């Protein structure tokens, strides 16, 4: 059973979002995603200050068996990226929701956060996939 924290939002591409106090949005991949990929060997992150539209592929997570795009769940500007992942990409596996965060985006349009899944919805979504 994969872990799905309560205070986060989720996308159908197995990303989580945390809305920070200052309004920026931290993004990572879920426990389900890291489990499916296996141990990460490399993470390619966007540049600070890079503009992104909702749905743009702006990062890549790579394990021995697969390389997957990570999409920006919202439109905005990248404000920060996780500096630890260059040397320790496996942090995404051991701590997908905390130490393994990928990047932060300053959102341009608050409305985009409406359509995202909450914990229950994501849990149902995962259950649907297993059928």
């Amino acid at each position, binding site marked *: 059973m994969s872990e799905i924290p309560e205070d986060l939002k989720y996308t159908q591409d197995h990303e989580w979002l945390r809305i920070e106090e200052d309004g920026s949005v931290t993004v990572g991949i879920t426990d389900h995603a890291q489990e499916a990929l296996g*141990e990460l*060997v*490399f993470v390619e992150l966007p540049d600070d200050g890079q503009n992104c539209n909702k749905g743009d592929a702006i990062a890549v997570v*790579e*394990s*021995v068996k697969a390389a997957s795009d990570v999409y920006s769940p919202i439109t905005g500007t990248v404000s920060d990226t996780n500096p630890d992942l260059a040397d320790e*990409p496996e942090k995404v596996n051991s701590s997908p929701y905390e130490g393994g965060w990928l990047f932060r985006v300053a959102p341009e349009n608050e409305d985009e956060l409406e359509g995202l899944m909450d914990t229950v919805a994501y849990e149902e979504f995962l259950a649907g996939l297993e059928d």
Partner: protein
Amino acid sequence: MAEQNELKDGLQAVEPLIFERHARHGSRNFTPEAAPAGEIPEEFLRGEEPALPSVSELQVVRHYTRLSQLNFSIDTHFYPLGSCTMKYNPKACNTLAMLPELLGRHPLAPGEFSQGTLKCLFELQEMLQEATGLVGSSLTPMAGAQGELAGVAMIQAYHKARNDLERDEIIVPDAAHGTNPATATMCGCKVVEIPTMSDGDLDLDALKAAVGPKTAGIMLTNPSTLGVFERQIKEIAAIVHDAGGLLYYDGANLNAILGRTSPGAMGFDVVHVNLHKTFSTPHGGGGPGSGAVAVGERLRAHLPIPYIVEEDGNYRWAVEDDCPGTIGRLSAFMGNIGVLIRAYVYMRMLGADGMRRVADYAVLNANYLMATLNEAGFDIAFPERRASHEFIISVKKITRETGITAMDFAKALLDYGYHAPTTYFPLLIPECLLIEPTETEAMQTLDGFVAAMVSIRDKAYSDPEALKAAPVTMPVRRLDDVRAAKRPDLVWKA
């Protein structure tokens, strides 16, 4: 420095890198001595010599001969790799392709120094057309993936030439080989995936829903990657053609139907043939291959150049003027000619009867092996279906009960002297092994393979730890591929 190997294990010793061998200086005597060339201005010259090995001929021969002995190969081992067709590579194909006149011919040599080579290649085109049931061909694509690129590009050229500009979707079954969607994307198309049903056939309802005015074509192989014949192929062809799309055939599994049926008969418009599979050109440790393409009438105008044309007994290369709708040149010269000559010699040695026998015995061997493994208690993925030239077994039940996976079977087989079958492909069947014996293996070899599989299964229940530790008799044990990807060591440094 004395030559030490880490293991003193007869022929299985680990071999140091060539750069770690004793250096010798002095000139080489392979070509005549040359006065050092002056006259090139300093700014263009390199400062230091490149750091290449500096060893004697004996050291080179000994080093690479010993390395060869660390390999499995068809010449030494049974390789039941599904989808790869690891059949015997006849020696005559190599010897005759290496005749000095053929080897020494410049690609741009004029017609009067080319008739021998070109005649062989023209006859190869004709035989491939016959085998695929199609009417035109080009031998230039240098690998299966390049053949696919040519196929999709030809389909796009066809639609564009008819001013049908909306068609940018390629339909691909969910069980397809990874190169298919990659090729479609490389050509600027969108990939539309459709599901396969539990009996191995394509979901026709899903196909009908997926085709439309945006359909450029569909990429299929038959028998499919599930090892079974797509029985509804005529209907599939009708559905796609009626919607205005074309059919592309991935020739990876041609060995199952050679001389019995053909992609042309099934309704395909373009085919790539893997000469290194069906026509026994060497796998060479990863290449060179060849992905020759054959086409029906619709796509003839778009073949990649050059291909060979014959006029009054004279052979020459067709160029753009001969084929104004061509998708163009895909290689600097004319493709992997050395590989093509080997395929030609093979096909001449088989002849019409021999080519038909290929499918007969490939399918016989596969069905025999499937029946024997079935009797021995292994789970066949499609037990109600005939095997084509390959079939799938799943060890999912064994995994559930013992923790021993398809990967563990693969590693353990090495210790029994067998290369593993293809594992974990197609992705649809969990813990699967895709097994293709080919027609050149004897019944005794197949029996031996089954005995090894039974022995491994017994160990799965009695001593799983031993299997998790496999292989134990190879030059290396299981390798750390996470480390290889995380801390890449791709170049030796002094």
